[in-house]
C-alpha cells in the first residue's frame, strides 16, 4: 500500500519543518488537505485548540484523549489506528474511505508540533478509561 507511507512522510515533513522554524509551510498544509481530505481542517482546528491529551500510566501504557467539537471526549489508541468517534466507525472501518478520522489526525499533528497535553494516571484509571469506552459501545 502506498497511502500510509505517503501520509507518514508528509507528517514527518511537518514535524521537521516545525522543529526547524516553528512554522508549517503552506504547501505542507495543502498536502494535508490533498491526502486527508475533509479531515484536514477540523484536525488542525483541534490542534489549534490544544484538544489532544496524551494519557500515560506507570506501566507505560499510553492512549490519547481528544476533546471533540461537541464537547465529547474521544479515545484514540496509540498502537493502532483506532478512535471511538462515530466517523471512524463509518468512514474508516465500514467504508474504508479514509485513512483516519480527524481525531487521530489531530493526535499525529499534535505530536508533530509538540502540542499534546500530558496527563499521568494510575493503572486503574487507564483501565477504567478503556473499559468505559466498551460500555458505551455496548
Amino acid at each position, binding site marked *: 500500500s502506498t*497511502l500510509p507511507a505517503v501520509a507518514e512522510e508528509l507528517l514527518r515533513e511537518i514535524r521537521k519543518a516545525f522543529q526547524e522554524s516553528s512554522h508549517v509551510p503552506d504547501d505542507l498544509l495543502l498536502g494535508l488537505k*490533498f*491526502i486527508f481530505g475533509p479531515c484536514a481542517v477540523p484536525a*488542525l482546528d483541534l490542534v489549534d485548540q490544544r484538544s489532544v491529551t496524551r494519557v500515560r500510566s506507570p506501566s507505560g501504557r499510553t492512549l490519547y484523549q481528544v476533546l471533540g467539537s461537541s464537547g465529547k471526549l474521544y479515545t484514540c489508541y496509540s*498502537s493502532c489506528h483506532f478512535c471511538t468517534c462515530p466517523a471512524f466507525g463509518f468512514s474508516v472501518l465500514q467504508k474504508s474511505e479514509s485513512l483516519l478520522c480527524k481525531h487521530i489526525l489531530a493526535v499525529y499533528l499534535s505530536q508533530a508540533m509538540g502540542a499534546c497535553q500530558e496527563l499521568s494516571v494510575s*493503572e486503574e484509571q487507564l483501565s477504567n478509561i478503556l473499559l468505559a469506552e466498551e460500555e458505551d459501545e455496548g
Partner: protein
Amino acid sequence: LCRGGLAERLCRLQNRERSAISFWRHQCISDDKTPSDKSDVLIVKILEIFEECTIQVAICQQLEQSPVALSPEDAVISAEEPILKVLFTRETAAHLKSRPQDVIHIYPPWQKLLLQNADVPVIMNTYFSQKVLLSEHSEAREKTHGLTKMLIKKNIISLAQTFRLDDLDDKLHQEPSDNQVACAPQIHNNSDSKQHPLALSAVNDSLLEMVESQGAVGWREVQVRVVIQRVYCLPAREGCRSHTQGNKPLCATPVTNSDPPNVRLCLLVQDAYGMFSEVQLQFLSSTDDIEQYCGRWEGKSCCLAGMKILQRTTRGRALGLFSLIDSLWPPVVPVKVPGQSQDSEMMSTNLPPPSFCYILTVQSGEIHVEVDEEEQISNLYQPPAVHGLKEILRINGCNERCSFWAQVLYQRLQTKHNVPIDQRDTLLFVTDSTLQNVVHGIPKVVAVSVTASCVLSMEVREALSAGSRLVFFKDALWGNGRIICVERTVLLLQKPLLCWAAAADLSELTGPVRLDELDSTTQANSVCALRGTVVGVNESTAFSWPTCDRCGNGKLELCPQDRELLYCNQCSEVVTTPVLKMQLEVFLSCPSRSQSTVKVKVWHEITLFVLLTMLLFLQTYEVQSVLGKEVGLLNCYVHSVTSHPNCVALEEIVLL
C-alpha cells in the same frame, strides 16, 4: 475556527486553490487547445491504477515529451523512462476517467514527495491534470471505453499500520507494542510474540517489578520466582461462568451430594522482597485434591508465568486476605529491600506489614505454575502455628488467624430457611485436651462457625457426619470471642507434616468427653450437659412413631395382607420388630440452674431415659408415672435462653 490558527490558514489556502482549479478547468474546456510545452508540466503514461481510501494511485511512466507528435505505435514503453506514483483525489479521478495507457498532463502546482524507503517518487496535488487524446483513433477508443465500466482494484489499509514521526535516533514516541491494549490481530498469534528479545527462561524475583513493567496485559516471557505460603480454595463469585475444564451442569444440587464446580484453587505466594500476591488458579472439579495440594505445594518455591493482574487490593478492602498476610508477618528470614545493595544485615523486623496486594490469575487456559516438589521447603515458608484451644481463647486481638487441632463432637446446620442449604453456616462443637483438662474458668467445648465461604472437601464433610473426628483447622479466624472458618481457612483430616506446635502433641483425649453443665452462664447455640427431675410433660407435642429396624425409614405402612403388621417400602419387606421413635418435651428442675424452667425436647431412642419414659408413657398414658423421675446426665443443644420468662429450651443430642 481559531483566528490566526492553522485551520484558518488552511481554509484560506484551500479556498484559493479551489477557485484556481475551477478556473483552470473552465479554461481548458473553453480553449480546447493542446497545452503548450511548458517545462513544469509532467507528462505521464498510466500503467496501472488502484485505489486506496478515496485516493486513486496511478503507477505511471514519465514521458520526456508529449507523444502528440508521435504515432500511437511509436509510443512504446521504454525501459529507461522513470516510474512515478501519481495520486489523484476522487474528484480529479472522476473528472479524468483515466485508464491504463492513457497519457496525462499534470500542470503545476504539483508536489513531489520522496519516501524514505522507496525508490519511486510520489506526485501529489494533482488537481490541474488533463488527459491528452492522441489521435482520432484514440478518440473513438475513448468513446467505446467510456461505455464500459472499468474495475479498479481497491487496497484496504490495515489499522495496525501506524505512523512513526520520529527518526530512528529519536526515541521520544517509541512505545513497545506489548504494553498497548491489544487491538491489532497479530498480538493474539502466539508465534508472533516470539519477536520479543527476552528469552523464556528469564527469571525475576520481584513481583512488584514484574507487575509494574509488564502491565495488565500479561507477562508473556518472564517468570517470577516465589514461595508458596498457603494453598486454599476460594468459592468463585461468578458461579455461573463456565470453565474450559468443567463440563458439569450447573444445576442446583445440594452441596451434600456433589462438589460445587465453582471452586478455585488459590495460592498465597511471597517473593524475595517479602511482597505477597494471591494467585487464582484453575477451577477444581473435586475439592478432595485440596489436601494433596496443601501437602505437596506449601512451603515450596515455584515459578509463575503467563499471569495477568485481576486486581490490586488494599488492606481496607480485603480484610480476610490481609488477616492471613498479617499472620505471616514479619518474614522469618531477612528479605531483600528494593534499590539497596543486598548484604546480610538486612533487618526485616522493622518493615511495616504490607498495605496492598496484587491478585493474579491465569491468562489463558493453561497453568503456568511450576512447583518444584522435589525441592526442600523454602526458608521463607512460615507453617501454621498450632495452639491449644485454651490459648486461642485467650488471644486478645481481633481478626487473628489461628490454627488448631481439635475433636469435633457435634455438628449443627443453621436453620435459616430463606438461605439455600449450600450457603448456610454450620456450627461445629469442638474440644481438645487443653479444654477438657481444665477445672474452672473456660468452657470445655467451643463452637466453631463454618461459613459457606469456607470450602470443605467431600472427605471432610463425610468425616464430620460420620463420627467423632480429629480435624486440623488451618488459618481459622478468631475475633469477638468466636472462632470462625471463613475464606482461606482449610479443614484437613491429616495433620500437616510441618507445623509449629506450641506445646506437646495435642491430639489425644484421655477419657470420655465432658460437656459443661447447664448453669446460669449457659448461652443459646451452645452444648451442655444437665441433670434434673421431671416436673412436667408437654402432652400436646408428644408423639411416637415406628421405624424400620433395617433402614431407619420412618414412614412405615400397614401391610395390605395383614393390617396388624408393618411394611417398609424401602426394604420391600415386613417389619417385624420396629424401632419406636418418640418426641417428647419434658420440663425439668435442674439444681444447677434452679431459677429457670428447663424444657428439654427428647427424641432419640437410644437413651435410657427416653426408653423408660416412653414405655411408661405409652403403656400407662399417664403423666404421673414420669413425674419425679431423675434424669441422668443428658447431653443437650441449647436452642434458646430467655429471661422473661426465665426459660431454657434444649434438645437432647448424641455426640459424635
